[in-house]
């Protein structure tokens, strides 16, 4: 037995805007019989460019029907730009929340809205973006990545709740974990290839690093630094402000400025004061 909110039950038992607008301006279809739920959304724009009417047909469980009903209520009166910003979380919140295993119902609503807007704008049927990861439900890496990013998902189970991926045979679980890791930045980064910088790249990078990383720190102590020239791997600088008269300036130069530049630009750099 699912723990549905009263609002979900209300929208399931008394769904709003069931139907199909024959002279629609936009239409979006998502899901399939095989997946167990599907939604066909149509909308009609008013003379003011806002959504004057929206209707849905849904095959699916109570929360799929309720999510569709909620979506049509939410988008009526919106401009397409506003409707495009409706997230799956907005739909779930409108319903007072959905059981986590049913979040994919709200994602389905969001996806149908996007497709319907794309149809209206003549962007046509978007090709499925990315590579299929979950064969059972036809979910791509891009879809998983997006769900992870937008909803802060951290486990395979959560990914299944939101986009169904991994809910069938389970063979794709390793791939889903890898996508989660990469998206959240937990994956071991591939070792950087030490591409040799051209002179102009090197100078730009040194200048940017000085501006962004080093100057603010020196400024805090009333000091400053100015890039004079770059000769091969020799970085020639002038210290200013309090730094110019500070007896620890050589220490600052070697242990702070040079270390930073070695770390962020190139390990071969040597900093010299002129």
């Amino acid at each position: 037995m699912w723990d549905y909110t009263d609002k979900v039950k209300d929208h399931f038992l008394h769904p709003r805007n069931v139907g199909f607008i024959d002279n629609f301006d936009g239409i979006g279809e998502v899901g399939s019989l095989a997946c167990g739920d599907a939604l066909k959304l149509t909308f009609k724009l008013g003379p003011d460019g806002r959504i004057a009417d929206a209707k849905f047909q849904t095959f699916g469980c109570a929360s799929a029907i309720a999510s569709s009903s909620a979506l049509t209520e939410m988008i009526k009166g919106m401009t397409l730009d506003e409707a495009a910003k409706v997230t799956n979380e907005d739909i779930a919140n409108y319903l007072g929340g959905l059981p986590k295993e049913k979040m994919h119902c709200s994602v389905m609503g969001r996806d149908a809205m996007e497709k319907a807007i794309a149809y209206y704008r003549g962007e046509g049927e978007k090709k499925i973006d990315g590579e299929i990861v979950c064969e059972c439900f036809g979910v791509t890496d891009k879809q998983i990545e997006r769900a992870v990013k937008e909803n802060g998902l951290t486990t395979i189970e959560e990914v299944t709740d939101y986009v169904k991926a991994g809910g069938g045979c389970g063979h794709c679980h390793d791939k889903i974990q890898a996508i989660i890791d990469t998206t959240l930045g937990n994956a071991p980064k591939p070792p950087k290839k030490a591409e040799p910088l051209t002179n102009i790249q090197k100078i730009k990078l040194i200048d940017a690093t000085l501006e962004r990383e080093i100057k603010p720190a020196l400024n805090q102590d009333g000091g400053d630094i100015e890039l004079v020239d770059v000769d091969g791997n020799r970085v020639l600088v002038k210290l200013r402000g309090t730094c110019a008269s500070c007896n620890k300036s050589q220490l600052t130069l070697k242990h702070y400025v040079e270390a930073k530049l070695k770390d962020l630009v190139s390990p071969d750099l040597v900093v010299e004061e002129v």
Partner: protein
Amino acid sequence: MDAPIYMDNNATTRVAPEVLEAMLPYFSDLYGNPSSMHTFGGQVGQKIDAARAHVARLLGAFPEEILFTSCGTESDSTAIYAAIRSNPDRKHIVTTRVEHPAVKNLVEHLGKNGYQVTFVPVDRQGRLDLDVLYDSLSDDTAIVSVMWANNETGTIFPVEEIARNVRDRGIVFHTDAVQAVGKIPINMANSAVNMLSLSGHKLHAPKGIGVLYIRKGTRFSPFLMGGHQERGRRAGTENTASIIGMGRAAELAMAGMEVENSRVKALRDKLEAELLKRVPNSMVNGDPENRLPNTTSIAFEYVEGEAILLLMDQYGICASSGSACTSGSLEPSHVLRAMGVPFTAAHGSIRFSLSVYNTAEEVDRVIEKLPPIIDRLRQMSPFWHEAQKSGK
């Protein structure tokens, strides 16, 4: 909400009033431990023996072949582990693709731990491919476990025939008969079945009591170890009240078998025929010939099961569904998928399972209420509109 119309008896049954009445003294006055030496406890032991005899009669077995457990799942696990522990050199298990999770998940687990498993497929009617079963048998096979009747479709399998062939190969045969016992006649006297599981709460005894039948001469190894209860085959102080209830339920099942196969069957047949007549694009899942008398699984195309159940719930009608959404998994039931039921139908499959407590009025009410529910959901379903357009 209306008074419940309970048609989900393959999930669980109500405790028969006679069963409850028989049990009550064992919660109050007769609280002794059946293992005690004193008369106060010992008298409970005698009542347990009587209950054991009732269960034995229901199965055509000897009382010493009856082992009380805590549930059907424990009986299944006990049987399968007993077989593989008694045959440590054999590393092959045969079962079907449509077993209850109590067997399916255990065997899948063993499959990941050194056992080779053959899952026998079924056809579109849910009938087993016996050639695959027999061809898979070898000297390495430790056990064959085939359910007597399927919980979702009610399809009855030719268990006696399979058991004979398996016995002739010198292999242990177990059957999960949880759905069959009490609904169809079962007689272990002339059978080749080695072990049989049953569950009390499927036949009007309470939840928390199961039975494992173990044919004399079958090599056995206990699942729970400890005390000497159940002649050392299942340790743990007896669940006395429930065992007494189980015995009474077995008596009632024997007496009620004819009602089950006449009146209950007639109610089921009427329910099924009327629903098929009144709802277009509906069909029965499973073998119409060999089927439990109380069960019908009906697929309503282009709608989804959870939505049907929740709308029926408004009228107090209790049934269950093979759809994905009801189980929390995302795929429809493994039984319907194994049968190759198309997705158009699998998601909208509803199982009605009746009992002796159902009435003709209840059946009429379901026949009245369900067709408009299906129609209402179809009016919402994009696939229904597409199917109508294409004239299906």
